[in-house]
């Protein structure tokens, strides 16, 4: 079985963001990058499936972006993926979800992957489009938002997370694509021996120009902070004084404290 897992490298979401020179995305200076959280679940599930099936089965991890994304690929290799693919694109942040999906589909089209894992969305763009669009482009069945996954003899039993804690159980035959939701599993931390082993694994580099033939279908006009709605009180200072101020406000404004 050939398995592909697609990952994105994103900034730490605790960061402060400001527009870059283009005005349509964030300034990268001073940001720390890591693997998109949703994709960690995708990598973990792909590696678990390989562990279930045996060593003859192979997991390829793919990421698109500038050279820094190799770090995310290395992490996935240390988690247990077998080989990496780096689609080199310094301008990946300017591509729209349709183009990103087209790049992945162009890579995967003639490779005969039985199963493709993606995160359900990225933490930075959050379009939730890429996985499903790759599946449509490749003509693969696809289901999304997985919080449960089981594989047996060519059939996936997936548990989709719906609103209000309800889940939907779906069966689909491979080849297929699934998108992973937070909580699907518990992603492992790479161990030191596995980090060392990963250094020997191959990372194939492919220039984006070899894969992308599609024009963007959306344009970003601006990137900016939300308009402040105001009204809220912001309290800053020393903890003891903050406690006094808050207790005063709660006594004044709520019936909870008397």
């Amino acid at each position: 079985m050939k398995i592909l897992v697609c990952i994105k490298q994103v900034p730490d979401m605790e960061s402060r963001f400001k527009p870059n020179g283009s005005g349509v995305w964030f300034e990268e200076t001073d940001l720390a990058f890591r693997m998109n959280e949703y994709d960690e679940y995708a990598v973990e599930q792909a590696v678990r499936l390989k562990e279930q099936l045996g060593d003859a089965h192979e997991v390829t991890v793919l990421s698109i972006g500038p050279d820094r994304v190799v770090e995310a690929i290395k992490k996935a290799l240390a988690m247990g993926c077998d080989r990496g693919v780096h689609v080199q694109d310094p301008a990946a942040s300017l591509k729209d979800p349709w183009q990103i999906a087209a790049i992945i589909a162009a890579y995967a089209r003639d490779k005969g992957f039985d199963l493709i894992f993606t995160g359900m969305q990225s933490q930075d763009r959050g379009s939730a489009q890429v996985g499903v669009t790759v599946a449509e482009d490749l003509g693969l069945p696809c289901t999304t938002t997985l919080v449960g996954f089981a594989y047996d003899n060519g059939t996936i039993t997936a548990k989709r997370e719906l609103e209000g804690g309800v889940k939907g159980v779906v069966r689909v035959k491979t080849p297929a694509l699934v998108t992973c939701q937070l909580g699907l599993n518990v992603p492992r931390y790479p161990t030191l021996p596995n980090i060392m082993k990963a250094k020997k694994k191959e990372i194939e580099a492919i220039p984006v120009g070899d894969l992308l033939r599609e024009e963007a279908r959306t344009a970003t006009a601006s990137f900016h902070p939300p308009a402040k709605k105001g009204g809220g009180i912001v309290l800053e200072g020393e903890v003891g004084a903050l406690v006094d101020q808050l207790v005063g406000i709660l006594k004044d404004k709520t019936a909870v404290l008397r």
Partner: protein
Amino acid sequence: MKALLIGEYREGKLLDTTYELCGFAAQLGGESAMLLVGSEGQLPDYGGTLYLADAAACGEYNPDLHKKLILETVARENPDYVVFVHSSYGWDLAPRVAAALKAAQVSEIVALADGGFEVGCCNAKMRRTVKPATSKAVLTIQAGAFPVTRPGGTPRVERLAAEGSGTLEFVGYEPAEAKGVDLTRAEVIVSAGRGVGKKENVPVIAALAKALGGELGASRPVVDAGWVDHSHQVGTTGQTVSPKLYVACGISGAIQHLAGMKKSDFIVAINKDKDAPIGEVADVLVVADVLQFAPALTARLAK
């Protein structure tokens, strides 16, 4: 301008989010039509044209077939926009329709913007203004971002026959886990977020909840990490609450969490990050390390 609104129906019920699509269409202006894979017995309060397929016959989750029905309707109505709610139904189906139409998709719209649409990004900390570059566009709107609008009237129903199966086999629904804690009845909820740092710190938040006479709540990451049981989760996939006082401890304020608590009467957020999106809904934002502030507040309340 014409919008085709894709209504939502699950477990035999028309979902209220369908009316948020009407709220969006009202802001957009122009005409609309609606498509619903639902039932004759539960028609929406919508006076326009309703394309109706029978969910009992085509399945509530059968994206291949639903896509086919939508494309058929698009061919008849020729809308400028096909609009979904950004939900487990909408984000699953919308890209399939966009791919088939070779149309732009704009996801999780929070507002109309000059010549385009405003969407959230970077975990709701930032916004982008996005413009479709194709003549038709597929849109998903953020749940809760547009007002629930019941246009009223009786729809003019155009029945759609659905044929064929699909590549997915829907097995069934699993109900939400039995709620150990009914947060919807709590007058005070004190919730722990990722900012509490580790599982061992959760009792600090639980102690504050007790001192305020309330219940412990939690954000999704804390539940996923196993620090707090799912029965305490507040948000889209947990419980939707509206207590008299909600205290968010170390919660940045992801959309899914905000949707579950923003109707609380009074909201206090304790967060180190002054720019955290939770500040958008908070009546009071205390900029502090929750692990210092919460114990100090608990001690003060005990006096």
